[in-house]
């Protein structure tokens, strides 16, 4: 089992969700995040003082999947989130040791979906 974490542009959330759904992955969790990467940020100006904003608004998606879905999940996220521009985001994959469905106490792969 894997835990896939993706940082994407907020406006791409709908597209990524759709791409995942289309690939049979319809469980996920979403959070707001601020990101700092190759995208350089921009200058804001508050009351005459310029300052660099380099924490940009991102959306963080977390998807737990069974091993065999790994590539599909990654591809789906890339497909949904990619524009080719800096700031498109990153995907991180972790090994998932265990998964429990709280409602039924089921464990492991069956609990993921």
């Amino acid at each position, binding site marked *: 089992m894997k835990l896939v974490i993706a940082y994407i*542009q*907020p*406006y791409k959330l*709908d597209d990524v969700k759709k791409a995942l759904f289309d690939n049979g992955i319809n469980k996920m969790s*979403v959070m*707001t995040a601020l990101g700092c990467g190759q995208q350089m940020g*921009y*200058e*804001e*100006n*508050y009351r005459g003082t310029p300052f660099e904003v380099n924490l940009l*608004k991102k*959306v963080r998606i977390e998807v737990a999947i069974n091993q065999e879905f790994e590539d599909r999940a990654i591809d789906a996220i890339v497909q949904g989130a990619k524009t080719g521009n800096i700031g498109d985001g990153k995907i991180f994959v972790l090994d998932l040791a265990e998964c429990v469905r709280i409602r039924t106490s089921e464990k492991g792969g069956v609990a993921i979906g």
Partner: protein
Amino acid sequence: MEKWRRIGVLLVLGLLVLGAAPDAIAQDEAVEPAAEEEEAAPITAADAMFTVNNTWMLVATFLVFIMHLGFASLEAGLTQAKNTVNILFKNTGIIAIGLLTYWLCGFNLMYPGDFSLIIAGRELFGFAGPMLDPGEAGQTAAYADGAYTYYTDFIFQAMFAATAATIVSGAVAERIKLGSFLIFSTIYVALIYPIAGAWHWGQGFLSDMGFYDFAGSTLVHSVGGWGALAGVLILGPRLGKYSNGSIRPIAGHSMPLATIGVFLLWLGWFGFNGGSVLSADPGPVSFVFVTTALAAAAGIIGAMATTWIVEKKPDLSMVLNGSLAGLVGITAGADAVSVNFAILIGFIAGIIVVFSVIALDRIKLDDPVGAISVHLVCGIWGTLAAGIFSADHSVVTQAIGVVCYGAFCFPAAALLFLALKYTIGLRVSVEEERGGLDVGEHGMEAYGGFQILT
């Protein structure tokens, strides 16, 4: 280049004000508004009546002023958090632009005294010269038969003027370039609104014809509404609003702000309609208060019932629009229809506004705050209703008036928007629209620190 354009703007503004100064000295010597009060004569009842009339008109003035905060709040509440600074900025700018252009030329275009352009007996255009001049008797009871002074007249009307542009602001929100919008507003409020206004309130050809619009269902609200319609058509919908043939709602970010806005607008309407009596005459003013309040209430009930049935769940944003619909609806005939008809007019306006909002969405006209439905559609309804429900006015004449305003304001607004589109551009870039106009146009955020999913 960008920078030079900005400096140019400042210079023009500066010259405008400074240029006024020498003139001002003359005026200063001539008028001396506050100095010459000797008042040896005993107080007469007419003096007292003049004073109370004028006081009421100034109260009405500050009530109309507060409508601008109402518009700003409503508009901000019904749009996304990422565009809030932009909306607040526009609304703060518009009231300034509205007051200053009305001082510069609007007042004397709208109330020209004489018309210089008369075609086929129709008084179409006149101009009494730039800036203000109270004349000899402007500050005395002689000016308006004891109803108000020249300066009261000006400031009450000036507060109205800016509302027309504010109406447009809501409809084109979340995608229009700041600079282009400010230019549009300036011209719309400095020229279009007062010229069109002169046709009826300035004793132009529509008032000769018997057209009746008590406080501006057409003269203010539809005029703004036509501009809104032109803007929405030319700008197109917000990104992602109508994707793949389906409608994706873009929810407003603060219902409390929207509600505050509507209550303040309603409050202001007591001045908008109540002040349009143009004196404190107890009978008509109190009557207008009643028709105004009950029409708003009926608009709420109308929209509430409709949205509960149509949408299954009662939609707050529609009910808020409903109260405004009732208010816009009663504005043309607030002093001319009976109380019971006022309720009926408001109730129907509340129903109309819900269907209008839904219909506009169906035909892919993206109006984030419902400005076209509230101000244009219900403005027309109200103007016709004044003809239908009052024996003194003809629904045909009312319809003619509605058409005249549409025929002038819509093309004028469309032309302005198109001119801007093909010169400095009308719409922000896709990136800016996505990231929000607050960061794009202003480099700042409305809610520092809050975690918001945009």
